[in-house]
Structure formats: structure tokens, C-alpha cells
């Protein structure tokens, strides 16, 4: 989208013209792909018209941006793909959205996702299934499947997603586009509905690294409204990269070949990170406990879908029971279980210790190497409906979850088969993107 951006900045292309190009694509193919839960064409057109007349051009001037439906945009519904928030209108803009609007980006609509980000293929939405633009029988990946599909299908120039355990990188790999999850704390989460507080980050989809850099540089930064945000110092360059042995276990052979071919010239050293063996249980148990906590706010009283009339317990229970999908319920129940008095020592406390162990082992390696490399996903996109059983789906996250456990920065670069995941230290976002630029050719 570098070309589009430059044309807009130079005035060769007008915002309304760019928007119409996207709308045309939407009219042609959205009926097949279902990337959006809600589209706001009228609002987008109005905004584009205003921008056409604007003299001073913001850095995102005229670019069309799609936003995952768990990020608050005032005036647009924020459903989190759940019946619980089917008609919910947020009274505020997320911090990232404020910045996008300030830089003259045009937000066109809210994209489909797994309900409350609980899933890896976007088939767990309460409303619709998004199809992979590269093959309509396949899933687009998840949970930010709608955003990845929208970018791939040309419905927008850039898209925002969120990534807790791979929810940006997985769909980027499956839809064959670029997806970036910055270091934990790089981008404000104010306005992002939590999945797991210590793992979530907002990230970017684009058809090129240029687009990712452009949008990332605008939305990054400390925010007094997200107390965990922090700008970290870039690490020193080691001029060494590593490929992780464990990443190829159970990996599709074609994908392995593609990855090794792509990084041939980098002289990557092969290393082992044994603690990755328990990354998957660590990740999911953390998710369950944090998810259960953040979901306590949905009681059908203050906003969202209401429960049946009755006493307090009945009303709140019916609101939650009737409006949460199965996977959401599973995670809440599991989270409640493993943090409850009798079981927390065995499950929750162990998980926290495992997290420390994995994080420190990876950080040690990243003291020696600038980047860790491997495939983003161990398989290609599966057919819609194929992975119905929860543990089948969980297993697919094996390569992406360690990054969130350790709060690191990672990007997925599309390959002929699968995607290449490049991982950098927490705080090395700009360094990583520069490196990815080099790999783009």
C-alpha cells in the first residue's frame, strides 16, 4: 500500500477516490468473504469528503482502515462477535483510534473475529464465519480473521487486530499477508476489550512492511490510560540469528521447506529452547484465569444484552448463559476452577512459575541472537468446521503462544507455503520491522 499512501499524500489520489476503490471491492466480494460484522459506508464517505477538502494532510490521510470488533470506535457497534454485545455502542474511542482519526485515517467498519477472541480460526463468532480470500473453503485463521481477510481482499489499506496467543500472526499466515504483534506495552490497550490482560496487544495487518511501519509508528506510545505501556530501549545488535529446533516439531514438511529456503542466506544457527515444551499449557491456563476475571463485568445490567427478569442471581446468570458462546463459557468455567481456593496451588500458581521459566529462557537466547526464526503456524489453513474439538484448535497455537508469554515482538511474513515468523526482544519493534523490510524482497 506504499503506492496508495504516496499518491494520497501527493494529492494524485483523493481520499474519496481511494474509498470508492475499496467499496467496489467490498461490493464484489464481501458477500462471499464476510469479513465485516458492521460496515459504515455512509460515515466513511462523509469523512472522505471532508478529507478531500483538507489542506494539511495527516500521516494516514485518506487511507481506509478496518478495525477488529473488540476495539472501541465511537459511533460504531462493538460486538466482540458476541450476542452479549450485539447492539453495544461504545461511548468512547480507543486510544489507537483517536490517533488514527487525528492522522486522517478513514475507518470503514468493524471486522469479524472469534467471540471475545476465544479461538484460532474465526469460526467461533456468534454472527458469521469469515472465509479465507485465498481459498473460500478455508478458515482465515483467528481470532483476527476478519481483519486479515479484509486486507487480503483489498477491502481496506490497513487493518487493526489483536493478538493474545497468535491472533494476528495466525490469520496473517493463513491469509498470506503481513501481520505484526508488537512488544507487550508498546501500544495502548485502552479501548481493547480484554481477552487476557498480561498477554493482549493490538497489532497491524498490511500487504507490505511499509504499511505496518506507517500505522505502528502512529499508534504506538505510552498512554496514561493504560498503565502497563512502556517504551523500552532497543537491544544492541548481535549480527546473529537463530532458528529454533522445537518450532519444526510436527510442522508441515512443505512449510518447513519454505521457511528454510527463505532464510537460507541468513546463516541462522540452530538452537533449542526446551521449556517451549510446556508453553501451550502455560499459555492456556493463564488465558483461562485472566479471561474469567475480565469477563466478570458482563452482567446484563450496565450495558449489553439483558437477562431474564428475576432476582439478582437469576438475572445475571441468564444474561451470561444466554449470550455467551460455548468456547467463551468453557474458558470462564476453567478460569474460575483453576483460580478457586482448593485448586489454585496446583494449577494457577504452577502456571505462573512456568511462565517465568519460559520467559527467562527465551530472553537468555535473545541476548545472544537478534532474532529467532521459524514457521508461524505448523500447518496451512484448515477447512471451515474441521477443527471442532477445543484441544485440536489449541494445539495449532504452539508456535505463536511463546511470544505472548514472554511479551516479545513478532511478525509473520507470507511465504509460498505457510508464513515465516520472526521474533525479537521486547522493545525491539522498530529493529524487527527494519529487518522484515529486508526480508520482503
Amino acid at each position, binding site marked *: 500500500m506504499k503506492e496508495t499512501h504516496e499518491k494520497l499524500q501527493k494529492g494524485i489520489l483523493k481520499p474519496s477516490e481511494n474509498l470508492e476503490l475499496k467499496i467496489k471491492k467490498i461490493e464484489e466480494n464481501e458477500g462471499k468473504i464476510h469479513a465485516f460484522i458492521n460496515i459504515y459506508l455512509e460515515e466513511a464517505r462523509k469523512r472522505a469528503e471532508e478529507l478531500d477538502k483538507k489542506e494539511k494532510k495527516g500521516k494516514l490521510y485518506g487511507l481506509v482502515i478496518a478495525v477488529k470488533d473488540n476495539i472501541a470506535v465511537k459511533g460504531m457497534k462493538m460486538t466482540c462477535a458476541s450476542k452479549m454485545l450485539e447492539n453495544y455502542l461504545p461511548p468512547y474511542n480507543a486510544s489507537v483510534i483517536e490517533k488514527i482519526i487525528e492522522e486522517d485515517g478513514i475507518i470503514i467498519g468493524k471486522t469479524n473475529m472469534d467471540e471475545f477472541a476465544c479461538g484460532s480460526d474465526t469460526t467461533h463468532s456468534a454472527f458469521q464465519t469469515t472465509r479465507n480470500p485465498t481459498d473460500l473453503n478455508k478458515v482465515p485463521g483467528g481470532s483476527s480473521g476478519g481483519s486479515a481477510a479484509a486486507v487480503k481482499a483489498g477491502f481496506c489499506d490497513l487493518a487493526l487486530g489483536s493478538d493474545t496467543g497468535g491472533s494476528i500472526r495466525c490469520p496473517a499466515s493463513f491469509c498470506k499477508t503481513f501481520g505484526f504483534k508488537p512488544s507487550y506495552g508498546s501500544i495502548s490497550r485502552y479501548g481493547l476489550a480484554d481477552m487476557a490482560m498480561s498477554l493482549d496487544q493490538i497489532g497491524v495487518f498490511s500487504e507490505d512492511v511499509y504499511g505496518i511501519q506507517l500505522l505502528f509508528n502512529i499508534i504506538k506510545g505510552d498512554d496514561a490510560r493504560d*498503565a502497563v505501556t512502556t517504551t523500552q530501549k532497543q537491544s544492541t545488535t548481535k549480527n546473529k540469528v537463530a532458528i529454533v529446533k522445537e518450532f519444526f516439531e510436527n510442522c508441515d514438511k512443505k512449510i518447513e521447506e519454505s521457511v528454510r529456503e527463505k532464510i537460507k542466506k541468513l546463516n541462522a544457527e540452530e538452537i533449542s529452547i526446551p521449556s517451549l515444551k510446556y508453553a501451550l499449557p502455560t499459555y492456556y491456563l493463564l488465558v483461562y484465569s485472566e479471561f474469567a476475571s475480565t469477563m466478570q463485568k458482563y452482567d446484563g445490567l450496565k450495558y449489553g444484552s439483558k437477562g431474564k427478569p428475576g432476582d439478582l442471581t437469576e438475572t445475571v446468570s441468564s444474561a*451470561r448463559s444466554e449470550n455467551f458462546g460455548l468456547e467463551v463459557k*468453557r474458558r470462564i*468455567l*476453567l478460569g474460575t*476452577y483453576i483460580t478457586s481456593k482448593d485448586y489454585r496451588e496446583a494449577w494457577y500458581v504452577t502456571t505462573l512459575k512456568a511462565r517465568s521459566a519460559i520467559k527467562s529462557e527465551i530472553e537468555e537466547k535473545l541476548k545472544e541472537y537478534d532474532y529467532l526464526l521459524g514457521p508461524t503456524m505448523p500447518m496451512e489453513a484448515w477447512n471451515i468446521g474441521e477443527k471442532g474439538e477445543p*484441544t485440536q484448535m*489449541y494445539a495449532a497455537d504452539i508456535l505463536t503462544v511463546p511470544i505472548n508469554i514472554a511479551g516479545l515482538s513478532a511478525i509473520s511474513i507470507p511465504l509460498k507455503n505457510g508464513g515465516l515468523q520472526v521474533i525479537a526482544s521486547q522493545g525491539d519493534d522498530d529493529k524487527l520491522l527494519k529487518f522484515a523490510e529486508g526480508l520482503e524482497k
Partner: protein
Amino acid sequence: MEIDKQTMKRISETSRIKLSEKEEETLTKDLNNILSFFSEIKKLELDKGEEYYIGRKKSKQRKDEPENRKEESEEIVKAFNSEEDRYLLAPKSL
């Protein structure tokens, strides 16, 4: 069987998720499968401390300066599912 019927009843009550008989059965099975899938973690002997804070390590503290968010509070009141005189109407308890 880590989670038995009684435990399932208790956690669904605690998390305010009412389950039908069938759902209870299915979910109990699901949950037990999942926990057994992840049970290897219980065998680990870890001497590491528990890490909780992945981003900023020490909170900044903000100045005590109030803001008036009239527009936002109006929308918040409008969003209440049941409202009377600007109060949220929750079910009574007495």
C-alpha cells in the same frame, strides 16, 4: 475425573453461568479433557518465582486533577438496560 458433577455445579454458580443438564454434561467432559491435555504442567518442578508484570515494572502515579466527562456519562446512563431517574435499576434484594 478432575471435575465432578458437584464441582461443576459450584463453578457454574460462582461464575454465574447457568447450565442445562445437557450443557453441564458436555462441558464437564470438555473441561476434563482440556485439563488432562494440559496436566503435564503439574508434573513440573519449578523453582522460579511467579512473574506477573510483563510491561511497565513500576506504576507511574498521576496527579489528582478531576475531569468532567459529561458527554460520556450521559451515554453511560443511556446504555443502562433498566433505568429510572438516572439510576441503574438492578433487581431488588429485599
